[in-house]
């Protein structure tokens, strides 16, 4: 019994189920108040930012689908990001890989905000091989 308690103390995540972290993959983005591209922005995100996928009480993953919205926590804020904009592993980010080059363009705060909005506005798709 004592050993189990020690294990629980050392590995707290096991007591509630695994915590899932995801990474934002576009250059900039927004954490939305509700699952809509036009919903207000709670926070601006940059590529590589880590968010925590919110779990329900039973410990199973909720609202996670490649074709829908994910409810996530970013810092103190809880909100929604399109699931297609999140990745399991840290992505290769343009503004990190080419940081000095990117900084030369003097992207201002309002540009960052607009750039985040841009990805919400795109109608995206891909033709597939049948």
């Amino acid at each position: 019994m004592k050993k189990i308690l020690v294990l629980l103390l050392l590995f707290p995540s096991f007591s509630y189920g695994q915590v899932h972290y995801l990474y934002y993959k576009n250059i900039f983005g927004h954490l939305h108040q509700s699952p809509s591209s036009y919903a207000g922005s709670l926070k601006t995100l940059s590529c590589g930012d880590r968010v925590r996928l919110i779990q329900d009480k039973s410990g199973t993953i909720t609202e996670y689908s490649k074709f829908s919205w994910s409810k996530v926590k970013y810092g103190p804020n809880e909100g929604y990001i399109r699931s297609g904009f999140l990745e399991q592993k840290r992505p290769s980010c343009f503004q990190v890989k080419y940081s000095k080059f990117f900084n030369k363009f003097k992207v201002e705060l309002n540009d960052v905000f607009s750039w985040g909005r841009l990805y919400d506005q795109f109608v995206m798709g891909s033709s597939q091989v049948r």
Partner: protein
Amino acid sequence: MKFVIIFFLLTGASFAKERLGEGKKNTDAEIFTDFKAIKEVLENDQLSNNAQKIEKGRVTQRDKKLDKEIKTYSIPGDDQFWNFISELWVVKNVSKLKWNFEKPDYGLDEYFANFMQDLGYYEVKFKILLLDTSLVTHFSLPSNNREAFFLLSVPFIRVMDLTKLEISILLLEDYMRGKLDQFKNKVVHKDLKSLLGKNFYKKKLDMKIFNGVLDKYNKVVFESGFNFEEQFAVTKQMQGMLHGKLKHFQAYMKLLGKMSSLVKRNLLYKDYNKIYPSPDLQLSWLKPAKKVP
């Protein structure tokens, strides 16, 4: 007698002590004066080797740090630069292009994807940015390999009441322009190609080159557009592409007819021919030549 024995014992002890002291002194002297022996011992203990290893480790760490620093000065290659610069231009022109607006889902993503598949264009990623302005009607901006970046005006498609098929054909025509590098050739700077994929560590990066590219984007989209030669090339490409598909070819002819009519009757689109000369001419290129009986 006892005193004699004690006397002899004492003198013997002191003599022995002296002899011992002398021997010890000689041993110490041998040790302290013979540094070479000590040095050899230390060397054999690998201390200098260890010191070299540590120094080598420090040099490797320093080189790694420098290498990491140098990599941050990389310039993206052709495969990553164009999508970035197109997005940057679109962001910088948000007020002119008016793309940040709420709109319904027209189902274009699925329809256009299926349309491209039907024509044999597989694994083509596309993103369509719908605009709430008649200032820009439609464009394909340069993007990365096997990716397409479209601008499409909602007022433009609404005023002509375009079907999804007609919209897809319009986007296909823009995609053809992209494949022919018509837009890219107009905006590329002569020094740009030599910079892409390189590194500017400890060098000055001439931002005039990149700002020049953005200025040329403005010129092509808002002022100059394409010329007759370029329009002829893309029209012939479209003819070749849609020739075997009667429904699509008829839709293309109908689309050009709608645009021709729009340009003539709607003042908002009077400058359309400056950018895309001219739908009437395109129709004439597509119609078969009349045979003399």
